[in-house]
């Protein structure tokens, strides 16, 4: 007897195909039909790449807008004189209906609010700057040293901003925008020069870095001087805004309430100011663009569904093409579960490879976008990448359940006859 052991095999205790062997066999199957395999991989790859690129675009737009807002300053609470009926952001309406002025003293008082980290009073007007016979109209901002931190201003090398403390309110100094520097001083060094502003003589102590872009005031054409100096130039002691920075994102609402309370107390119990938070505006944009990104990603994910259906069809063709082979494997002792695993492993490989190459393709696409539009931070968000990969694998595998089951259930005699 060649078969020494006569013991009846116990299927429960029989060893089964190892995972490595299943994968190797599935790989030969996938490579054995290159066109079919390439087609499924391509479909998967396009689906994943579409999700990655489109969400990179959407999230890039969101980041761009958020970045623009953040450039205004973080955790910002803005105090405007006058009560806005709608609470909306309408400076014209607000400024004209001023019942009681905002003053530097009001600003000082706000420092007592525990949720306030720092603040900068701001008065704004126009004036004329002259230097070496050149005259130019400029937007003049009166503020304090804190303005730099509150608004995240960047200075050119060798520059100083307004001095700290009392001097910051009155010292005869000016910080000018990059464009003003170019137009008024040309190639001469600007720092240290004396300029005339209205009827005052001021020394230029700093240059604001060119920002090129930016919402709100364009700092390139701005001249910043101490607040008291600006007020005396404008012959008024009112403020245009108080820019308040809350201690943290979580303290913004507290800061808003405290600011309102203090000012109400100071203004004879009347709530005659408007407090807006940058956060509220930002959150709206953030939500809107986030939803847009998700929607775009979702639409792109439909292509993954299509890819899944394609994988299913490819696997159905594979089952039909390899019917004889399936019959043979059964004759050689393969169980239904073995056959199912072989086909699922093949589908998983197609999906995994497709998803991985799609991810690389998508990242390349996002990189190309960033190269062509450097201001646009087109990075695919992590959740979108994860969702795309998981969806690709899940659809690839999910849609292969039917073909794999069909293969496993084939009648071996019928299968062997079809050869």
């Amino acid at each position, binding site marked *: 007897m060649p078969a020494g052991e006569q013991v009846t095999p116990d299927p429960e205790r029989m060893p089964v195909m*190892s995972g490595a062997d299943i994968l190797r066999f599935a790989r030969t199957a996938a490579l054995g039909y290159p066109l079919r395999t390439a087609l499924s991989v391509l479909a998967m790859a396009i689906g994943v790449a579409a999700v990655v690129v489109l969400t990179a675009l959407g999230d890039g737009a969101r980041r761009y807008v958020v970045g623009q807002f953040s450039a205004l300053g973080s955790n910002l609470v803005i105090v405007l004189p006058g009560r806005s009926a709608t609470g909306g952001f309408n400076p014209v309406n607000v400024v004209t209906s001023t019942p009681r002025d905002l003053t530097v003293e009001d600003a000082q008082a706000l420092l007592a609010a525990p949720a306030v980290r720092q603040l900068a009073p701001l008065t704004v007007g126009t004036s004329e700057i002259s230097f070496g016979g050149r005259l130019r109209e400029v937007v003049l901002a009166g503020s304090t040293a804190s303005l730099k931190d509150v608004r995240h201003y960047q200075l050119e090398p060798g520059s100083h901003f307004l001095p700290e403390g009392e001097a910051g309110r009155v010292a005869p100094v000016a910080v000018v925008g990059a464009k003003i520097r170019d137009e008024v001083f040309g190639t001469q060094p600007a720092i240290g020069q004396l300029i005339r502003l209205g009827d005052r003589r001021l020394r230029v102590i700093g240059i604001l870095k060119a920002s090129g872009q930016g919402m709100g005031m364009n700092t390139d054409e701005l001249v910043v001087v101490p607040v008291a100096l600006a007020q005396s130039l404008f012959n008024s002691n009112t403020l245009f805004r108080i820019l308040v920075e809350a201690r943290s994102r979580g303290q913004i609402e507290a800061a808003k309430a405290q600011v309102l309370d203090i000012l109400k107390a100071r203004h004879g119990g009347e709530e005659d100011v408007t407090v807006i938070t940058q956060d509220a505006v930002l959150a709206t944009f953030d939500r809107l663009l986030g939803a847009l990104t998700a929607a775009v990603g979702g639409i792109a994910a439909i292509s993954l569904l299509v890819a899944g259906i394609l994988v299913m069809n490819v696997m159905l063709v594979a089952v039909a093409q390899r019917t004889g082979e399936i019959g043979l494997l059964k*004759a050689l002792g393969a169980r239904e579960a073995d056959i199912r695993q072989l086909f699922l492993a093949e589908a998983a490989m197609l999906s995994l490879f497709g998803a991985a190459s799609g991810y690389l393709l998508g990242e390349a696409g996002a990189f190309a976008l960033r190269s062509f539009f450097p201001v646009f931070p087109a990075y695919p968000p992590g959740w979108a990448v994860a969702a795309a990969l998981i969806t690709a694998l899940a659809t690839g595998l999910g849609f292969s359940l039917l073909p794999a089951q069909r293969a496993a259930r084939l009648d071996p005699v019928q299968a062997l006859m079809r050869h």
Partner: protein
Amino acid sequence: MALIELSGIERAFHLGDSVVHALAGIDLVIKAGEYVSIVGASGSGKSTLLNVLGLLDRPAAGSYHLEDRDVTTLSANEQAAVRSRRIGFVFQSFHLVPRLTAAENIALPLLLAGIAPAEREARVGRALREFGLEQRARHRPDELSGGQRQRVAIARATIMQPALLLADEPTGNLDRATGEEVIRLLEALNAGGVTLILVTHDPALAAHAQRQLVMEDGRLKSDTDR
């Protein structure tokens, strides 16, 4: 000792209104180590009988004991285990997997049985030597002659050292000389102890067997033991 005991085996196929009784009451006992040939007209039920013996097909009625165990009542997984360990198939059309090499084709049953790669390699190497296929180990089926293909198929059928070897017209796609060579190989395996059941429609080949069965319309017409 009886390897196979069939009694009252029935298998019918329904084609529309008509019923084909492919196996109509087969009683048969085959002892371990026997060499049995089966002849009969086309459609007489030879392949169906082999499929039942190989647990690829379930009879509608009757009992089948293999190595003293009733195998018709086994679950699908248990039957697969029996196919894996106790039964080898050789087909007329070879049934090699075209994308796999000769060595890989021979290794398939070992792979499915979860046998470790090192032992697999040793056993496949031995089989390649025994069947004179060493030079062809890395060749795919389309690079092999018909005789070589059938030798690969036989090596694959016996790599798990089965008790029962079922060959359904194994020479049907081969020329006479190659066919005889394949028959000699199967007979050598039988001489080594494997029970060999050979379906053929070549009376000369059938005459090699010590026991000859003739089938007709799903019945055993004659059973001659020399």
